């Protein structure tokens, strides 16, 4: 019956597409590590935007010249970074969007410096 042949073709096509997609997702997920050095509350100009693909494993290695608390919004990761040591934020970029990393200065009552541009923006694209 032609109808069933069409159906079968569609089914096989769908299965193939699914398999290829599964393979691609598996293969394209990369682990990316970024070394970021904070000096006077800023990172280097070329490090202020980090673009990754959905599914990547992202590892941010922070070093700083003074004690600082960093907060990655959305993924909601907070790390206190001390001078002389490396603070690591590691997460799987499952959720798409643009997520700011902001500074919560430990010495200034924990408040945000309102209206300041974020330290780093992480953009996760689908």
């Amino acid at each position, binding site marked *: 019956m032609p109808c069933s042949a069409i159906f079968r073709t569609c089914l096989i096509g769908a299965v193939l597409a699914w398999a290829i997609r599964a393979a691609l997702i598996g*293969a394209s997920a*990369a682990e*990316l*590590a*970024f070394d970021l050095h904070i000096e006077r509350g800023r990172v280097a100009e070329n*490090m202020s935007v980090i673009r990754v693909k959905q599914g990547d494993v992202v590892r941010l290695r922070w070093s700083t010249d003074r004690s600082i608390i960093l907060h990655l919004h959305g993924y909601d990761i907070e790390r206190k970074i001390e001078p002389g040591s490396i603070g690591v934020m590691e997460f799987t970029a499952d*959720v798409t969007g643009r997520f700011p990393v902001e500074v919560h200065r430990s010495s200034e009552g924990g408040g945000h410096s309102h209206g300041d541009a*974020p330290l780093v*923006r992480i953009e996760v694209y689908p």
Partner: protein
Amino acid sequence: MLVSFTPATAHGFGQRYDLPLPLPLYLLGAAAAVVLSFVIVGLFVHSAPPTRPHSRSDLFDYPLGRAVAAALGVPLRLSALVLFAAMLLAGFLGDQNPYRNLAPTLVWIIAWVGLAYISAFVGNIWPLINPLRTIFDGVEAAYRHICGRNLALDKPYPHVLGVWPAVLLLLAFSWTELVYPTPAVPSHIATFALGYSVLTWTGMFVFGSETWLRHGELFTVVFGTFARFAPTEIRTNPPKPQFLLRRFGTGLTYRDQVSPSMMALVLLLLSSVLYDGLIATPEWSVVESAVIARLSDVAELGPMAVRSIGLVAFWLLFLSAYWMVSIIMSAATQWQFSPRQTAQSFALTLIPIALGYHVAHYLVYLLVQGQYIVPLLSDPFGYGWNLFGTASYRPNIAIVGARFAWYTAVGAVLLGHIAAVYLAHVQAMQTFAARKLALASQIPLTALMVVYTCVSLSILAEPIVERSRPSAQPSAVAENKIAIPADAVLPDADSGRLQAIGPGQFARTKLVYRLLGSAFHDGTKMTAADLLYPYILAYRWGIRGDGRETHYDQSIDTATAPIRRQLAGLRVVATDTASKSFRVGDVDFLREVFTIEVYTTSTSMSPEREALPAPPLEYAALASSCSDGRSSRAKLGGIFADGSHSPRR
């Protein structure tokens, strides 16, 4: 959960995680706006619009409509009143963390954004639930009952004032939302709300409740303006209440002109939503610091001052652009109407553009941040209550992805544009006697609408310069590191019990096995648990403890050591009964296919390596695939690939 106060760049309250529109989508949207405008103009050139009187069916003519209205009316009004009171109490007495207090989410997200959508796409419900009105009307009714006369002074409202009180209040409201540094602090919200209530009640007391609601109650005027687009019209006036159905946008084309104050309000609505998008872009931060630096010797300006000026300037810019277009329209139609009359005739047709951008900018925000209302309703004051059992709900920020956001944004902006151009043409056909004049009047207005739409899209896409800024380069890249889902399990080293591994674990290799389940020799059906059992066995019998335990076997230890060393997680993904079932004659072969994922820490560099933990080796593998693209069937030596084999025990 970690919580932080929001930076002022966000709308009123809450975080936005929007990605800028991709460049191709942006260009496509802009091009479509231009092309569709021509298509609509062409339609009107060739044929006049259907001018038949729109059929109005009244839902209150039907018993069901009346029953629903009667059932919903009072409860809705009461819940609005209760929420209003709860918001004030929470603001003054509750936890001052904005995420643990009802007030910010309720005011900025649910009421301000949510009610705008209900008004625009369902109908004008604010006059029916307005808690300020409920309170005033209640007090007035009680007063009339006791003293026998009206409470309100009912002074005549000065006609020239129009809706200017509402315009000024909208400006103040937008300022609070976009410029005020702490719009999310609950006590500030409650203070503003109380102050605004007192102002509204004073207005109602002086001019009478209905008069003030129509001219000075910001939300009645704003939601009422959005609701002109809605497909329903609610009339509560005597002789009888009506609930009329109409086409979208019918309420925006009227023969009579709107007042100058209404025109100012429409352009303020349009400019303030766009301004909200504008100041959230990274480019704005750059421009803002540049302006502050440039003017530093002239005057000491903070970001607040720059933003306040920007808000008003953006409004005046939109207003003057519209005014100039009105002059051109007036000239193009042989001065049949003065520029002012022209401007007042067409102001409302800009509303769909404002709505389109509103949806593009706020819908995802409402869907993501609006979820906070679920836990907050159970714990409005942050005291740890759980009134409705929803206090532990955690918002899912992945509820919609970036693609959904992009397509709805472009779609909404384009639909708004089409509606605006179409309605303006309909309005022109009603306003001008000669069709030629009507069409001539629309060329400048359509051009202006294209400009507004492209500005909307540009703000969504952000200026192209940002796109060229390169991403930071990773210092190390390792392929094939795979996150293990938090619900994967691993047998416990002591007891062999399966424990969830939790988030943040990684594997080198992921194997997906699809296994055909069949009956055991005694007829019992195989289940997913049978697939996991051998792993449990390997851990339970393969680990030597302190020597006293009863379950230890040297041979199992030796045989399963590589598996135990490398196994990082197991996950039963699905049990699929349908896809492999078939039928021969009268006999149904119902086949269950189990999909399990195995995560290992080995890098599987050589496909010949035997150490990869395969699923229970006696079981038949129907099909399997492996994340690195190689078939893992080869690794399952000795397995019956046709799947017809019954498992042995």
